[in-house]
């Protein structure tokens, strides 16, 4: 083989190796990413579930928990007080640096009626949003109220 051809082959091989290694790196990264994120989401979902439980267990000045207040508001069909309390509470304890948005709504499950919602302005992409829900019983054992909660947080 001529010397010129050898050098061209050498350079071409180097380029080929770099390309193959890059492609392999990208392929293996993408194949694994889905699984890793699944775990991270599951753990985050548990964290915000605890946040939501803490919100709902918080007591007002009359020693009623917010969950009880939601039920009472449901029967009175007036959600102003409870929505304001929830909003103030979430604003107070919400990690604004890490989680720029939150969204909470309550739905009566018997007739799928949306009761109220509390939300913040902010932007995150879908992959950064984690959601959970909690059921609250009412005096009617066949009707529960579902509290949906979403947080949009930056992945660490």
């Amino acid at each position: 083989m001529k010397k010129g051809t050898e050098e061209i082959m050498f350079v071409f091989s180097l380029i080929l190796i770099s390309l193959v290694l890059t492609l392999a790196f990208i392929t293996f990264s993408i194949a694994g990413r889905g699984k890793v994120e699944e775990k991270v989401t599951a753990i985050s979902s548990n964290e915000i579930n605890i946040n939501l439980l803490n919100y709902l267990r918080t007591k007002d000045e009359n020693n009623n928990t917010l969950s009880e207040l939601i039920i009472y508001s449901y029967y009175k069909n007036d959600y102003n007080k409870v929505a304001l309390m929830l909003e103030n509470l979430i604003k107070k304890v919400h990690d604004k640096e890490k989680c720029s948005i939150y969204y909470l709504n309550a739905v009566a499950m018997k007739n799928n009626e949306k009761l109220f919602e509390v939300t913040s302005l902010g932007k995150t992409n879908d992959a950064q949003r984690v959601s959970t829900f909690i059921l609250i019983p009412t005096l009617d054992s066949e009707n529960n109220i579902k509290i949906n909660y979403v947080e949009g947080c930056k992945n660490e």
Partner: protein
Amino acid sequence: MNKKGIFMPTLALATMFLLTYAFFVFIIKDPSLSYYLNLGNNQVTLISTFKDAESQLFYNELAVKYSLYKTQEEFAGNGGVKSGCNTRWILNDESCNPALKENFEVILREKLKEYGLELLELKIEDNKAKIKLNDLTYSTNLANFQYKYSVKQILSYDLAIDFNKLDKIKAELNDCLKKAGKISTCASEKYDKIGNIIYFTIENNKNILSSASKDFKRLEVKFNVDENSLGVTKF
């Protein structure tokens, strides 16, 4: 071709072959061999279990509270005796005997059942109800990971019915029956008397969310006794 010239193309082809083979083995042929797939699966299962248990416990706590509200309302409406007794206490009678805690337990058991809960034990002490439900149990039996997680459900709530006072009146009426004395000389609680019927109204200083009015209200236990036939006449 000399050795120096052939080395790099061979290395490139070998690398390409090895990586393609690895991709085929780890990603396409058997994804379970993927390192990422097994990372933290067991921990996530365990964490999800804690989450489910906490949510269920939260639900049950409220379900018990509302069952207690409904039970107290019905119990107070019945005057502490069974519903067919028309709030009349008849001591020693099989059906209208004011067996307060037993009657309360029967109603509570029924109300809890509506929420899919089973009462294991009820204690009423100092106007507080201590309720024991079945443990919440979660388990898994994966090939490399087994666990059993149980959460005890023992809940305690203040009652809006003054059981201490009701027990005291019952004891006084029993004394009256034994001594064949007049209620006016035995009962220390305030009462109203119309003819031979003596009416008691016992209230506690606590509110409950009423299932009838859907508002908070104070409960009153109203019952009456016939002064002439406090208990069942036995011949």
